[in-house]
Structure formats: structure tokens, C-alpha cells
């Protein structure tokens, strides 16, 4: 009994110690806490002079001009890590380019990326860890649900947040959050208008993933916009993450209903299966997708000839001819050994958006997080960016981006502009 007690005492000690180290961790890096309330505080890079948490000082250590601390959050482990790693790399390339060219207004960028495992709770943890690091501006999250959770926290702290790829409208509900990618409703409306406007088909079937925010978000708006268009939705079928290997039932239903076009607001992995199974049952409608289909040609074991003629609305394709895209793609391939997807491009643009917003607003890295947020939020509605994922991108105060979707068709194994 006694020994049990001893053991438990040791464990308690270990536990308190681990908590204390958690407390003490803040001392070491000297970054300020209470970003929202402590107005005079700086989040300077010259952190070697110990703690500044109680000081109202705005001076920088060592006379350096400070730096912009940009944090990123996304899944770098787990099922969604493809997207998180792409964003991490995309930001890195942009940050390195800007730093090499002298930084933003002569101030260098420091960049740190944290993992959220595509989990809301871990997203908030990652955000808190970045706050301890002294983050000024957040690029994240990569996926929608963690983004919503973190957006609630950034609203409390009044931290500027720009998400490269979280497309749910809930993400940008607060004034301090902006999106680089299209929001789901806009993609749904855009797709419906594109199909209707170009009279691609009159009978349409939809196959969507009801357990996915992205997919069901697009589907809902597509359906409501379809009422205003000349076509008719003849079949709506769904699947979930747990039943995403056999689509013959859904395809048969679409075929029986005589659909000429199948709308696929889903990700490339399932789309590849759908294309294969449709071919096996000799059903060849026009397949139409959104940016989630980007990457369908890179799916392992997929016969890319089946993707011939697939049309997708996407802001970015790696095969585009313009100089900017080619430079980005070649850098990315050189550094990371694979072709970048749309997420990487969104992330790359996000950094340049922040750069433009800072330059426009005149915010400095000495400003408090809250001031930076107010200045940048105001500047966001005034800037206009030509990026990889669209030219003349502008933002509304709601946080949604406005840019032209581009329709691409897969021809001879490459993406080409659809006419």
C-alpha cells in the first residue's frame, strides 16, 4: 500500500512537473502573452532578451527591425495530410521568395507551420502553440472544420486570418477572416451557371459526398441555383466516407434517368473510381466537377484515358502556360519532387495577398496583433491581386474572394482551357 502511495506521489510530481514546464515554456521564448489585451506589447523577433510579457515596451531587442511572424496551420499527418503538406510547402516557397527579395517593406518574414491532424481540437491547440511563438498573422486552416474552430479563437484575439483553402462559408463568418479559395456556395452557383449558361446539358445527375462539408456545401447551392437555370436535375445520389468504393448504384440511377451530364462536386479519389465504373458499365455522359477533381490524373492505378473529356472548374492547373505558374511549378518540383496541386497554389497566393495587404495598409511588424488585424482587414477590400489562382482577385468585407472560375477540360492527358 505504501509503495503504491509512493508511486502515485512520483506520478503526481511528474504530472505537476509537466504542467510546470508548460508554464515555464513561455519564459524561454520571451514572446508576449495576452495578445488581445496587452496593447503596448510587441511580438518581436529579438526574443533573446528574456521575458517581455509585463512590459509595455515597443522597442525591439538588438536594434533589429523585427520581423513578420506568419503562422500556418494544416494537417501534415493523417488522412488529409496531402493538402496540409501542399499548403506548408506553398507558403514556404512564397516566404523564401519574398525574403530573398528583401521582405515586406524591408522586414523579413518568419514562418512556422503547425499540424492540426484535420481535427478541430488539435487545430485550436496548434493555434495556441503559434500564439506562444508570437504569431502576428495566421494563414490557415487548410480544411474547413478546424478552420471554423480556429476562426472563433482568432475572433476573440482579433488576429488576422487568411485561409488558403477552407471553403466553407462558416470559416469567413467573422470580420477578421478572409478566404483565398472560392467558398463552397460560390462554386455550386458558379457550376450551375456555367452549365446553364453554356447549355452543356439539359438532364443532369449529381453524385455527392454527404459526409463531407465541401461536397454537400457545393451540392446544396448547386441545387438551389439549378432552379433558375434551363437544365433539370434528374437524379441526386450521395455516398459517405464509409461507403466510397462502389458507385454502380448511383451511376445506374443516373443512367436510367437519362442524365447527359453527371456533376461531381467531390474529390479526385472517388471521382477516379466513378469514372472507372462508369466506363465498365458503358455509360459515357459528360462529367463535370469542381476544384476537388484537380489531381485526378495523378491518382495511382487510374487509367487516365478514362478522364478524357472531363470538365472541371478550377482556379489553378499546374500545366498552365503563363510564366508565373511555370516558375512556381518548377520551383515546387525541384524542392519537393512532385507537381503542386491547387492547395499549394492557394497557399502561395495567400502569402502574396498578405504582403499586398500589409503594403497597402502601412501596418508595421511593431504593431500589436489587434492593430495589424484591423489595418489588414480594412486593406483587404482595397487590394487587387494577380495570383496563380486567378487574376484580378478582390475581396468583399465578408471575407469571400471574387475571381473568375476557369473551366478546364482534360484532353490528351493534360488540362486545357475549355471552350
Amino acid at each position, binding site marked *: *500500500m*505504501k*509503495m503504491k*502511495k*509512493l508511486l*502515485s506521489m512520483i*506520478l*503526481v510530481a*511528474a*504530472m*505537476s512537473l*509537466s*504542467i*510546470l*514546464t*508548460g*508554464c*515555464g*515554456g*513561455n*519564459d524561454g521564448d520571451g514572446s508576449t*502573452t*495576452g495578445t488581445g489585451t496587452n496593447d503596448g506589447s510587441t511580438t518581436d523577433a529579438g526574443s533573446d532578451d528574456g521575458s517581455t*510579457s*509585463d512590459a509595455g515596451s515597443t522597442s525591439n531587442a538588438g536594434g533589429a527591425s523585427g520581423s513578420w511572424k506568419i503562422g500556418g496551420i494544416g494537417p*501534415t*499527418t493523417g488522412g488529409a495530410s496531402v493538402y496540409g503538406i501542399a499548403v506548408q510547402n506553398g507558403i514556404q516557397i512564397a516566404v523564401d521568395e519574398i525574403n530573398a527579395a528583401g521582405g515586406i517593406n524591408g522586414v523579413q518574414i518568419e514562418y512556422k507551420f*503547425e*499540424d492540426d*491532424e*484535420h*481535427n*478541430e*481540437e488539435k487545430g*485550436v*491547440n*496548434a*493555434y*495556441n*502553440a503559434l*500564439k*506562444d511563438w508570437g504569431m502576428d498573422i495566421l494563414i490557415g486552416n487548410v480544411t474547413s*472544420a478546424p478552420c*471554423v*474552430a480556429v*476562426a*472563433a*479563437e482568432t475572433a476573440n484575439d482579433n488576429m488576422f486570418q487568411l485561409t488558403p483553402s477552407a471553403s*466553407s462559408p*462558416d470559416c469567413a463568418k467573422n470580420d477578421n477572416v478572409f478566404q483565398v479559395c472560392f467558398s463552397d456556395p460560390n462554386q455550386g452557383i458558379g457550376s450551375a451557371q456555367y452549365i446553364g449558361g453554356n447549355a452543356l446539358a439539359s438532364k443532369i445527375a449529381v453524385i455527392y459526398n*454527404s*459526409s*463531407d*462539408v465541401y461536397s*454537400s*456545401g457545393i451540392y*446544396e447551392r448547386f*441545387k*438551389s441555383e439549378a432552379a433558375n437555370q434551363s437544365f433539370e436535375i434528374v437524379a441526386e445520389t450521395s455516398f*459517405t466516407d464509409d461507403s466510397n468504393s462502389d458507385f454502380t448504384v448511383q451511376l445506374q440511377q443516373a443512367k436510367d434517368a437519362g442524365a447527359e451530364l453527371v456533376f461531381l462536386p467531390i474529390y479526385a479519389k472517388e471521382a477516379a473510381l466513378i469514372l472507372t465504373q462508369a466506363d465498365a458499365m458503358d455509360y459515357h455522359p459528360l462529367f463535370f466537377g469542381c476544384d476537388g477533381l484537380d489531381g485526378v490524373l495523378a491518382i495511382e492505378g487510374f487509367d487516365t484515358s478514362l478522364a478524357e473529356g472531363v470538365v472541371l472548374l478550377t482556379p489553378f492547373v499546374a500545366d498552365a502556360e503563363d510564366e508565373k505558374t511555370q516558375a512556381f511549378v518548377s520551383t515546387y518540383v525541384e524542392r519537393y519532387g512532385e507537381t503542386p496541386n491547387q492547395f499549394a497554389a492557394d497557399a502561395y497566393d495567400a502569402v502574396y495577398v498578405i504582403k499586398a495587404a500589409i503594403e497597402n495598409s502601412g501596418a508595421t511588424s511593431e504593431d500589436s496583433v489587434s492593430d495589424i488585424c484591423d489595418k489588414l482587414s480594412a486593406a483587404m477590400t482595397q487590394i487587387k491581386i494577380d495570383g496563380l489562382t486567378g487574376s484580378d482577385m478582390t475581396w468583399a468585407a465578408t471575407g469571400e474572394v471574387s475571381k473568375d472560375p476557369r473551366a478546364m477540360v482534360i484532353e490528351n492527358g493534360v488540362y486545357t482551357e475549355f471552350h
Partner: protein
Amino acid sequence: MEDAKKKKMTAYTKQTMITYGMVIAVYIICEICMHTGKMSNQMKGLLVPLCYYAIMAVSLNLTVGILGELSLGHAGFSCIGVFVGAVFSICMKDVITVSYLRFFFAILLGALAAGVIGFLIGIPVLRLRGDYLAIVTLAFCEIIKNVVNIIYLGKDSNGLHFSTKDMMSLGMEEGAIEIVKGPQGISGMPSDANFTIGVLLLLITLFVVLNLTHSRDGRAIMAIRDNLIAAESVGINITKYKLMAFSISAALAGAAGVLYAHNISIVKAATNNFGYNMSILILVFVVLGGIGNIRGSIIAAVILTLVPEMLRGLQQYRLLIYSVVLIGMMLLNWSPKAIEWKAGMIAKLKKGRNKKQTEKQAD
């Protein structure tokens, strides 16, 4: 005889007091750290999660350790707590403006709902034993997750709207509140949870579980665990006690779920949260902390929640290290050699102390 009884009582009281004291001590340390500004944001953000994971682990220990039935569906009950508590809070946001009061009712309601569901599920499930029971609880957890994922619930001036199809079929007016959005989860909860409430809830959980364990009912439950036939033969009502332990465990998990929901602004029922993976995670806390050892559950929950967060500096390698830590802890706690070694060390220590004591007495 009298003395022996007294001594036994104090030993038990001591053990209980250590458990409570441990929680309170950590609470006080954390509060001091927080008020002196010595605590990092990361740690502050982790305090409430530590509480609900500890509560989930303690409540699961009631089923696994005290009742002796392997349940793989514990997260399902938390899931019910999450949704019932969150829906209540969102609906009552404008009616009850005192956050403590609203949160109190939310916890009560969430725990009650989870307890009732636990009771209902327990009726068929507890007729099974061992592996079969584990699989059926797993299935019920998945059922709860999938049911929650088809619920669409909204509120406008006409009242609540409900559908199992999609958001549009609710047919709500402009400006309505979308409460539950099927697989997209529930969002918009007021952030009522804080560390103090979390610790209070943990203490209540401990109080319930520890007192139950040491009560007449608790001894009956443990008798069922140790030998079902013997327990039945002395007239213990097996169904009643099994259901009691199971539904109390479910209710406490539901309360933890409510705490979870009010600490974060969006909750989705997916495999990782409130699905199979989370059930296993909680079971890992219980097994590592020691089956039947309530204090161990808390410690394991705290350590295993902190480790991956504290290792953030190691980037992608942290999950690798986390699993190595897990295997290491498991070996240290459960391998016969390690137990033997530990027992040897303890005996040695004891010997040393005894020697000292005898020397003292000799003096």
C-alpha cells in the same frame, strides 16, 4: 479488531484523499501559473481538454475496471452529451443569459440523455459477455455517430425544424439559425466551459465513481466482475447492477461531452472525434492508467493528452514518438518482467525502510 478496522478505514480514506488532493493541487498550481502570467497559451488551451479526457477515462474505468465489461463505444455516449448539451445551449442562448446557470442545465441534460441512452442500450447489450459485448458496444457507437450525422436541425421564429435529408428541406425563413448540419456538425455553442468548471466536474465524477465503488452497490458490482455465477447464487440482481454501472458511466461520459462542446466552437461526429478512434483513445487511457485504478486513469489521460502537444517542436516525428511512449508505458505497466522488476525494487526499498525502522525501534 477495532484497531484493524480503523486502520483499514483510514487507508481507504487516505487513498481517496490523495486522489482528490492530487486534482485540487494541480488545479491550484495551474491557477497560480495562470494568474501570474507564467502559463503559455498552449497550456491554457489544454486545461479544459485535460478535464474532459480525464472524466471520460474515469467514467470508462467504471465500466471496464469496476464492472469488468470491455466497452468500445464510450465515445458514443459523449457524442450524445455533445449534441444534447449544445442544442440546448444554442436554443437557450437568449432565454437564459447567465452562462453558469445555462451551462449547469446543459450538463445536467446532456448527462441525463446519455444516461438514458446508456440504459436503453445496456438492456440488450449487457446480456452479452466479453468479446461479444465489446463488438456490440462498438456497433452502437457507430450507430449513434451515423444517426447524428443525418440530423438537420434549425430554428426560426416558427420554432424548431427537423429533417434527415438536407438543410434545404427544412424550409426555414431568412435569418434562421442552423443548429445541427448533418455531417457538418454542430456549431455556434456559447463558450461556457472553463477550467474551474472542468475541475469541478472532474471532482464530481470522482466523487460519484469512488463512492459507488466503496458502497454496497459497488461491492455487488465488483462481485459480478469477479465471479458472475457466485454473485448470482448469493442473490445479487445481476441485470440491475450491470445496468446501474453502465448507465452511470454513460451519464458521466455525456457530461464530459457537454464540457467538450462548450469549449470549442464546432463539433463534428467523425471517426476521430466521437467515433471508433476516440473510444479506443479513452480505452488506452484506462488500460495504461491501470484497469480499475481511478487515479491512474486521470494521470494517464493527462500525460497522454499532453505528450503529443508538448512534442510539437519535433514536427512530424511527434506522433511517432507518441506511439513509442505508448508502447513504453504499456510495457512498463503490464509486462510481467517489468512488474517483477518493480516489485523487486519496491521490496528493496521497503527492506531498507524496515531496517531503518527496526534500528530506530532498537534505539
